[in-house]
């Protein structure tokens, strides 16, 4: 793939904050690398405090990285030309509360060098698309968090950017708002836009991105195509059985198959998980003990599980390191 197709490139980004009177060091980022290609949608995941916002601020020059570098459209992000093609939504955006949405967009439009005619046409369109047309002539002072979020999204789209960098786009929105934003994102992808967005709500991400980058305590713990990540770690299946009149010996027989783990059991049914390679051994065992297979499905990690597992994994590693 040509270099021109890499819209955002972050290389070994590190940031150390100094806090308090004695300048205690806080390592917010420890060598983060990632790429966003043209047309790609990359979900940036991680628990609160993992460094998502800090790295996004480094990308947009709000924060100077301690080490590493950022390239936007192949340019240094301090070049206005690089930032001209990015639409940024800050985390819980704040705008001038004395301005109306139309005025915010007008101000932003001028900073992008859009002419009056274009703005006059485009601003009402965008506000309408984000469901703000009724409040477009009211100052932002009285706006709810969700409405501010919509204004934030509108201003990020104003200049028709190729790359959208959104920090927690779903936060502050009600279920309807989330659904609308999700639809908007799907629409933007269809238009060929590249998306880079952070979230700590995994359900929002799972359906919206091609690949994810999972961050924990300032370091990338998993990165890649969503489908690879979710399958790669384990190939497992889940099996449901209806048990015979005398359940205990049957359950014991099923559990004797290598690798089987009991998920849950009632007086008449049992749910097991096992390596997919052991499925035939399990069905053989079931035949001989009188348990009846009612359901067999490949077990896929949900993103949630992947997330927790990766974080825990890292925790164990660092705990091991600290031991003498």
């Amino acid at each position, binding site marked *: 793939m040509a270099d021109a197709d890499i819209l955002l490139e972050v290389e070994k980004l590190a940031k150390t904050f100094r806090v308090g009177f004695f300048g205690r060091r806080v390592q917010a980022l420890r060598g983060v690398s990632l790429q966003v290609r043209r047309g790609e949608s990359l979900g940036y995941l991680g628990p609160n405090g993992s460094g998502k916002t800090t790295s996004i601020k480094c990308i947009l020059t709000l924060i100077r990285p301690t080490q590493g570098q950022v390239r936007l459209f192949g340019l240094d992000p301090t070049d206005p030309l690089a930032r001209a093609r990015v639409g940024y939504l800050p985390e819980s*955006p*704040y705008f001038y509360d004395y301005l109306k949405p139309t005025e915010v967009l007008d101000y932003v439009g001028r900073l992008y060098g859009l002419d009056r005619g274009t703005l006059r046409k485009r601003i009402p369109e965008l506000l309408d698309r984000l469901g703000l047309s009724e409040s477009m002539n009211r100052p932002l002072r009285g706006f709810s968090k969700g409405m501010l979020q919509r204004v934030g999204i509108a201003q990020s789209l104003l200049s028709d950017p190729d790359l959208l960098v959104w920090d927690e786009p779903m936060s502050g929105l009600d279920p309807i708002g989330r659904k609308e934003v999700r639809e908007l994102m799907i629409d933007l992808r269809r238009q060929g836009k590249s998306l880079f967005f952070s979230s700590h709500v995994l359900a929002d991400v799972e359906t919206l991105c091609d690949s994810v980058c999972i961050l924990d305590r300032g370091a990338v713990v998993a990165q890649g195509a969503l489908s690879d990540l979710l399958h790669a770690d384990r190939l497992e299946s889940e099996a449901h059985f209806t048990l015979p009149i005398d359940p205990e010996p049957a359950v014991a027989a099923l559990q004797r198959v290598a690798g089987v783990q009991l998920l849950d059991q009632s007086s008449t049914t049992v749910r097991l998980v096992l390596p997919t390679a052991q499925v035939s051994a399990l069905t053989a065992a079931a035949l001989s003990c009188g348990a009846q297979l009612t359901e067999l499905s490949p077990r896929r990690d949900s993103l949630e599980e992947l997330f927790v597992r990766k974080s825990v994994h890292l925790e164990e590693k660092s705990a091991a390191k600290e031991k003498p």
Partner: protein
Amino acid sequence: MSSITTSGGLQLQVQGPLASLRRVGAVAANTVREAGRNRLFFGILGAAVLLLIFSVVLSDLALVDQRARLVQDFGLFTIPLLCNLTAILLGVVLMTKEIERKTLYAILPKPLRRAEFLLGKYLGLVLLLLAELLILTFVWSGVLLLRGGWLTPVIAEALALQFIEIMLVTAVALFFSALSSPILSGVLTAGVFVIGRITYVISELLGAQKGVFVEVPLMRALGRVLLAVVPDLSTFNISDELLLDWTIPNAYLGAATAYGLSWTAVFLVLAVLLFERRDLV
């Protein structure tokens, strides 16, 4: 001016000095608009107008033939003082609010340089202060007329020179507030303003035969440092000369203006250099 065309066919003008100037203008316009919707600016303006009108009452205490003089002195002292006060308050409030309320976080990632932002903020503030000075001068000349005085060209010259001081104080306010908290910026700017107006006192004390500024080495060092880093604001005050009906040589006006603008530039450039390095976390 070259422009880039987006995939949706929009024209973005972001390169070149003209585009840069337009961004500075957009920030300045927004600053003016913000002050126009802010109680602070109109509060100070209203109080200042009342104070000037009050000088009519005050002048009644004086002998009839000195009333115009009194109003004149009062105005020449009060108008610049009020404008400087506005410069400090408005400069600090409008700049630190952008950081505290994080409005800047949505604006700076746009194709806008930090220098352009600061310059726009500065120009907006200067425009507001010019408007304040003109409004107050207008009210005051009415009061002056009422008491048989007249806004002479020399008085106008004196006010114009005071405006250089106001521009300088605005730059100082922006410098501190781009780098520190609202209260600290307010205190430091006010400090520079007060010390700047009495630098001649400090230099007299340093040149005297005795006194703390001569005898205590620490105070002597402090005095020297203050004289070096604080501009001499009395340069812009020619009301004493006016009182004595002296004519002010044009060379002096030119030199004073150059002095003020140079200091203004120093503070603005320092503000940009330091602000560019600041993390907006």
